[in-house]
């Protein structure tokens, strides 16, 4: 029997933190499409159970289109049972908006709720963590060790158990409870670790990255349960339509924008990023103060190659004092004057020197 574990879909997320209004709208729609595609994947791969471990929606103000799409998808697939455990972003608004809760939508509450998968030994249990049940959650969990136990939770993992507040999952407290697979949500990157001698815990990560704090591949986990052997095999399936990557490019030694563009291109080619991906290129390294660098030009070079590109300049300027020590020109006098200035940070001095040299070299300054 196959099950699908996903979480943190954050449908209806605004997506404006990185993108402009039009692309944000496009990505918002893509989130919904990816959710639909995930259900189609389940249908095509004989998966009859989808575990949604929280944060299905991003905001309490769920748009009508998102709500209708989700409820329609659930109703359109009566052969798939959806186990929806609400996360810290989810509210009652989706459920209260439904006239009737479909039979194939299984819900959880602040106390442990278990569902036995029909004609099998698989038991799916879950609890929506909150302040009122955070302490009791662990000792109230009673599982039959003879069954295949899948437990759903949403929260931040904590191995130490030091913190005692809602939405923290104390993994140590879940040791030796008979859990075969702990399906988690909240952390937006895929993670798989051993829970105890018997089971594992997995964060599926989000379905689509929304910002450059969610870089890398995203998708869901497919569980293959062998009831005879009493084993669960979990495989991460990359499924995001677009991935986000932060690419650090060290341009030390480059003396012009052309050289820097070449270095960036080299690094991007090595990274094998897809045309539909979103990239944040960060320039690093120390550049000579007299070097020519035009970030607008550099951005324009790669803008059309990917769905979205932004460029951050984190390079530092290197000023070689000896180069100007005996320079009797105005340029030399200027550099010496700036360097001798008190109460100005070195980085600022470098920036001023660079500006002065640009002006004296008759270069354009990007305003």
């Amino acid at each position, binding site marked *: 029997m196959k099950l699908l574990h996903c979480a943190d879909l954050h449908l209806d997320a605004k997506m404006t933190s990185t993108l402009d209004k039009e692309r944000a709208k496009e990505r918002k729609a893509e989130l919904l499409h990816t959710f639909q595609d995930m259900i189609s994947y389940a249908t095509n791969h004989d998966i009859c159970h989808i575990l949604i471990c929280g944060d299905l929606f991003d905001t309490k103000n769920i*748009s009508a289109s998102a709500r209708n799409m989700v409820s329609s998808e659930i109703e359109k697939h009566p052969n798939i049972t959806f186990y929806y455990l609400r996360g810290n972003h989810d509210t009652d608004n989706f459920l209260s908006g439904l006239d009737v809760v479909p039979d194939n939508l299984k819900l959880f509450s602040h106390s442990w709720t278990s569902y036995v998968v029909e004609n099998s030994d698989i038991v799916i249990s879950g609890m929506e963590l909150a302040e009122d049940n955070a302490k009791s959650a662990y000792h109230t969990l009673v599982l039959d060790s003879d069954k295949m136990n899948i437990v759903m939770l949403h929260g931040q993992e904590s191995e130490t158990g030091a913190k005692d507040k809602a939405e923290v999952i104390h993994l140590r407290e879940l040791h030796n409870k008979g859990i075969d697979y702990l399906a988690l949500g909240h952390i937006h990157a895929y993670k798989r670790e051993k829970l105890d001698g018997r089971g594992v815990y997995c964060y599926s990560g989000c379905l689509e990255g929304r910002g450059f704090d969610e870089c890398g591949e995203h998708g869901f986990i497919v569980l293959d349960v062998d009831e005879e052997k009493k084993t669960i095999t979990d495989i991460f399936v990359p499924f995001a339509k677009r991935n986000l990557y932060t690419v650090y490019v060290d341009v030390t030694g480059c003396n012009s924008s052309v050289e820097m563009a070449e270095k960036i291109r080299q690094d991007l080619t090595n990274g094998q990023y897809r045309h539909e991906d979103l990239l944040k290129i960060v320039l690093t390294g120390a550049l000579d103060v007299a070097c020519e660098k035009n970030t607008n030009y550099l951005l324009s070079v790669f803008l059309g190659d990917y769905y979205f590109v932004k460029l951050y300049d984190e390079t530092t300027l290197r000023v070689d004092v000896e180069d100007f020590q005996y320079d*009797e020109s105005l340029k030399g006098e200027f550099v*010496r*004057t*700036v360097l001798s200035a008190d109460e100005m940070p070195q980085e600022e001095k470098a920036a001023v020197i660079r*500006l*002065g040299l640009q002006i*004296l070299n008759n270069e354009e*300054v990007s305003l």
Partner: protein
Amino acid sequence: MRLLNCHIENFGKLHDFSMDFSAGCNTICQENGFGKSTLASFIRVMFYGFLGESKRNNLENERKRYQPWQGGIYGGSLSFEVGERQYCLRRVFHDKVQNDEFELRNQKTNLISTDYTERIGEELFGVNQESFIRTVYIGQNDMVTSATDDINAKIGNLTDDTNDLNRFEEADKKLTDYINALSPKRKTGAIYKFKEEASALHTQIRALQGIEDSITQQMELMEQKRDEIAHLKEEQSAISKKQEEASKKKDIQAKKEIYEHLCQELLMKEKEVTDCEKKLHDSLPDKNVLDEMSIKQKQSEELYAKIQLTQLQENEILRINELKNLFQNESDPKAIISEMSARWNERNTKKSTLLMKKSTLATLISYKEADKRRQTEAARKRFWQRLIVGVILLFAGIGIVGFYMAMKASFSSSGTLSTTDTSFGNAGLLITGVIIAVAGIISTLLAFLQKSRNNQSVSMPEELENLEKEIRDDEEQIQNTDMTIKTYFTDKGLTFLESDVQSELQKLLSYVVEYEQLLEKEQKSSVHGAELENYDRMQEEIGAFLHQFEMDVTPADYAKSIVDLKEKVSAKKGAVDAAKKNYTECLQKKEQFEKEYPAAMLMSETKDDLESLEELNRRFNQNAETLENLYQTARDYEQRLEGLREQNDSLNELEKQLANLNQTISEQKLLYDRLKYTQDFLKQAKESMTQKYVAPLKNSFLQYYEVVVPKRDKEYYMDANADITVLECGMQHETTFLSAGYQDLIGLCLRFAFADAMYPNEKPMLILDDPLANLDAEKIAGGKNLLQELSKNYQVIYFTCHDTRR
């Protein structure tokens, strides 16, 4: 460097003008209007080109100003010496600089020289035109000067090395432009504009800031409506249940009503049965009695009929008398008629076979004659055939025997044939011949025998005669029968007609039957007295019976009355049966009903505390309407929420724009500050550079000044920008506070000081256009001395219009 000569084709008012220049001081003293300033400008323009090319004002735009008055192209040539090389520079000016012609030739070789380009002034003197004007070229009333970048750079001897000090002003201007372009205070400044934009965005954001609260409120309203909907749905559900209960109650009530109705109906049916039975028993006789009466009536009727049958009627008496006349002499008239009928039938049969027999006889006679002819012919043919065959066989047998005899005689005579060899063959031949001859004889005999037999068979047959006899007997018998019947018919008064005989006999036979019946009835009518009494008694009983039921009718109507009574009884009985049937059906219905519905339900008490179904329906419909309105309101809220969400998205977008704008502003502000720092540091650097040559420049200035004014009357200072200040009343003041004469003097000395500092080796020519015009007489003398002093190191081209300054 020095000028050698010049030739002006056309330039301003000068036309075809030539002049040679010597080393030292070249004084050109001409009256006003000669064209001294034009000549001075010509020399400058030959090196640098025109000033004010883009100006509209003719005075400021030199290209227009120096166009020949008579029109046409203009220009000229200028020969000069640099080091040991002599050049001839030629320019022809047109309407615009692109069309101007430039030519430089080596004076000695007369070959085109590429040592200098069209920018020969800058290349030769190392300064731009502006600096040239401020140093070695002193135009009329243009004495005051200050150090330009080029001057500074030239003075600092930095031009050849890095050539960047002369970029200071350009860089400073560029920085100023950048700073102005970014300025947060100027309306055209980017930061100012961004701040304005940010302020507008901020205003828009403030206008939208309540949107979150609005969404929350709208959500709360939405929740309220959803709660109301849920509450109303629950209420509807409760009403539905009540409706169900009420409906059930109504059903039970209906069933109970039906049951009660059935019970009442059953009672009624039972009463109907009783009434019908009572009516039946009270007003009508018992069925058995009635049946007895009916039988009695039937018996009396039969008795009456019987009595009636035994009495001969009048017509019957007449008839029997008629028939007696016909048949009283015959003992058995039926047998006689039957015999007559049989004989007539036999007679008819014979008559019909007689014709056939006659026909057969005629046929037989014709057959006999034909057969006789045919037999005669055939016998004749057979006779001749057998005779011929017999004769042939006879002759053949004789021939064979003869041949045998001949053969035997021949062999016997020759003795060639042994007996042993021929005995068998000869005997066979002889026997064959004999047999054939015998066969021929037999055939001939048979032919004659058959011929004689045929002659005997042609004689009259016996059967033909018998047939003729039979025919004669039959005809006789028919005639006898006809005679007998004719006689009988005549006795009975009937006419004999062959075609009517059979029907007349049948009619007589029916008369006989009728006659016998009438005779029998005549015999029976004598026995009827006891039966008649019995008949009267029965009639009385029936009459008395009918009287009991108020049916006083004549005996003739007894039967009908009894039938009526029977019908009435039957009808009443039918009514009783129908009533009983209805009762049974009703009872069955009731029992079936009791089976279908439990007695507890049918006997239960009806609760009146439940609302009526109508009331519940009314409430349900009312709630449904309210629910629909609530759904509509919820949909409206949803739409409003969508609108608010869009506005919220706009707010987010605006906030993002504002954040980006603020980020841009801080970046621009940082850049702005850096640009200002850069400008400040660049100025400091420039001042630091110029400070190095201020002291020698000041010394040179004072040296020249003291040539004009031997006893220095004022204290002069020079700053790092080579600007002169004068000490007056203990304070340094700008020289603009001094008189025009002093200003000219200071400017003149400073120019020469610049020239000294700028050109330590190759000295350029000095073009002075009446520089002493503003000086008093004492200082003019000093000025002249100054010129003399200068001419030791420089070629001086000095223009003046007055002899006192010559």
